[in-house]
């Protein structure tokens, strides 16, 4: 890279005149230049092209302008480009001519998408945008009204606004959601994709004022459902820089799907605690528990209430996201300090998509009394889900249990998640879900829903004594 910071021979061309210069990379969109042969030019002088010889190749750049600067190290000033804007870094370091205007190449594709949008949806989105803008204005004015009050008074006033007009606004959002569902209910999958895209472009200013919606849309860790999003769902509080932001943040967290996520946390904690009660193991043997795609593993806090609890379990937490594992470790550390004890935990940074082939699975993990995964299978296609669940079943001890979650196709928050949150998951029916476990004949399988009736759980018990016909999975 350093060689590209050195001077490079080049020629400016204007008419039939060739002006030899040295150019040097100085910023993403400008060169430092030195005129040779005692040439000099006034500030603002224009040239029809710049030709650079570099690495045995010739690069021709279009119309440019000289901007005079104080002469430092013999450089007369900078050269900028006035028709096409070139990315000098790409040119110097990758030997590729990239124009800033390349960003416009996709414009027709995006602009033309609006022709696929149903008239009723255009109208709906326009009305919603208008209404939201009116509400925002109202809440911003109220914020301004009491902005000079002391902080504790301000907070109290804001809470009153949230509890009164704010809740009415939440009701308005609920009504608009029902209206949306009516308009899109007969759409095809492709229509949903196009209308969702259009909707988010139109509503972008609202989306980015709400911390939860911003995160689900931008997915800063590269995937949906990261541990920060989970933490926001668990917290289910008002966050944001203004009353309007706080309300827009809270609204998706009150939807049935978010409630299902909070419910499943309780189910897991209850099941682990019950498992401990039912277990006939020796006094010193800890129950070995594997959480797959563990995220922040907040449910462990609900399990480990006392010092005694901490001595009963050995957790193995597996996640593809190192940050999520750090968060889980922080929570475990917090519990250890609070209860003044040590908790047996191993952390594994691995993706389920590659873990089946990972040598550590065979050699190091051993087998488990309980394996659970709450949100992973919502993202796995059937061939992958089937392979993963089969492997997890193998990792169960005889008599061990497994609990796997998946959102049901009837999720009432499906369109809210897709249109507002850009959060698409893989839904299953009961039959789809059960069929993933076809290779586990020595299992008792039942399926149940959490209280919101949205998330299914496949509950698998491995028989204590394996059947003869189950040799494939032992």
């Amino acid at each position: 890279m350093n060689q590209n910071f050195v001077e490079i021979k080049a020629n400016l061309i204007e008419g039939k005149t060739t002006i030899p210069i040295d150019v040097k990379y100085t910023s993403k969109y400008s060169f430092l230049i030195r005129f040779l042969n005692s040439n000099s030019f006034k500030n603002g002088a224009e040239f029809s092209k710049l030709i650079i010889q570099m690495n045995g190749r010739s690069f021709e750049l279009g119309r440019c302008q000289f901007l005079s600067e104080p002469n430092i190290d013999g450089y007369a000033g900078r050269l900028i480009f006035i028709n096409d804007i070139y990315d000098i870094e790409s040119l110097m370091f990758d030997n590729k001519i990239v124009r800033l205007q390349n960003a416009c190449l996709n414009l027709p594709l995006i602009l033309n998408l609006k022709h696929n949008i149903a008239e009723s949806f255009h109208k709906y989105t326009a009305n919603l945008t208008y209404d939201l803008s009116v509400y925002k204005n109202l809440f911003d004015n109220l914020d301004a009204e009491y902005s000079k009050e002391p902080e504790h008074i301000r907070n109290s006033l804001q809470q009153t606004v949230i509890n009164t007009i704010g809740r009415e606004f939440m009701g308005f959002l609920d009504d608009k959601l029902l209206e949306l569902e009516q308009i899109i209910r007969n759409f095809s999958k492709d229509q949903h994709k196009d209308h969702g895209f259009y909707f988010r472009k139109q509503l972008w200013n609202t989306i980015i004022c709400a911390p939860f919606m911003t995160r689900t849309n931008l997915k800063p860790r590269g995937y949906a459902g990261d541990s920060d999003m989970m933490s926001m769902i668990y917290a289910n509080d008002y966050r944001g820089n203004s009353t309007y932001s706080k309300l827009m943040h809270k609204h998706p967290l009150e939807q049935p799907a978010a409630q299902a996520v909070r419910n499943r946390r309780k189910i897991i904690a209850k099941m682990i605690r019950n498992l401990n009660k039912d277990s006939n193991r020796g006094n010193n043997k800890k129950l070995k528990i594997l959480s797959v795609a563990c995220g922040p593993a907040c449910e462990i806090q609900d399990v480990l209430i006392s010092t005694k609890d901490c001595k009963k379990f050995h957790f193995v937490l597996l996640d593809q996201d190192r940050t999520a594992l750090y968060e889980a470790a922080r929570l475990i550390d917090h519990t250890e300090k609070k209860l003044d004890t040590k908790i047996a935990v191993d952390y594994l940074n691995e993706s389920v998509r590659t873990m089946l082939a990972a040598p550590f699975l065979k050699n190091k993990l051993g087998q488990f009394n309980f394996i659970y995964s709450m949100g992973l299978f919502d993202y796995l296609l059937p061939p992958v889900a089937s392979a993963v669940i089969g492997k997890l079943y193998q990792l169960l001890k005889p008599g061990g249990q497994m609990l796997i979650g998946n959102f049901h196709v009837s999720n009432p928050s499906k369109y809210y998640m897709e249109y507002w949150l850009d959060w698409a998951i893989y839904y299953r029916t009961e039959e789809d879900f059960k069929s993933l476990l076809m290779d586990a004949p020595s299992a008792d399988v039942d399926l149940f829903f959490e209280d919101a009736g949205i998330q299914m759980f496949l509950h698998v018990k491995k028989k204590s004594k394996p059947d003869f016909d189950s040799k494939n999975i032992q």
Partner: protein
Amino acid sequence: MKSSIKLIMKPKWDEIEKIRNKSSNFLVSQGISNNSIQALTMVISELVENSVKYGKFLSPKNTVIINIHIDENIVTTEVINPVDNTVFKHLKKLDKTIQWIRGFQNPLEAYTERLRVVSKKPLNDEDSGLGLVRIAYEGKAILDFFVSEDNFLNVSALSNS
């Protein structure tokens, strides 16, 4: 309606066209619409090309296996090939890219973003990642993969017919 076909090919570039034809003929025989066949054939071609490119065919017996399964209006394509430990870095990237693409309700977002990035890449950079977003956007398919215990990479694409 449930039906499926299993195709086996040698990991050679000139075999890909035969697979395209065989899979296309199968889809025609199942009454799939022309538009869907075009999209599905593109998806199958991209997956098979990746398989030949990144697979580790250490024994002459090693092949690429293509399973196409139709159930109601869902077509699932699986392309399976052997890998070894040297491709795990590539698989991590594949994992990230697939999750990134699937993070968008509309893969147009991934497509336009990838085109923007590719337009800035060096001319000799072969690893554009554009194939995967084409599968999602043009092929209208959802992608996923896993590596089995015996080191076979299984990449699946799920499409509506």
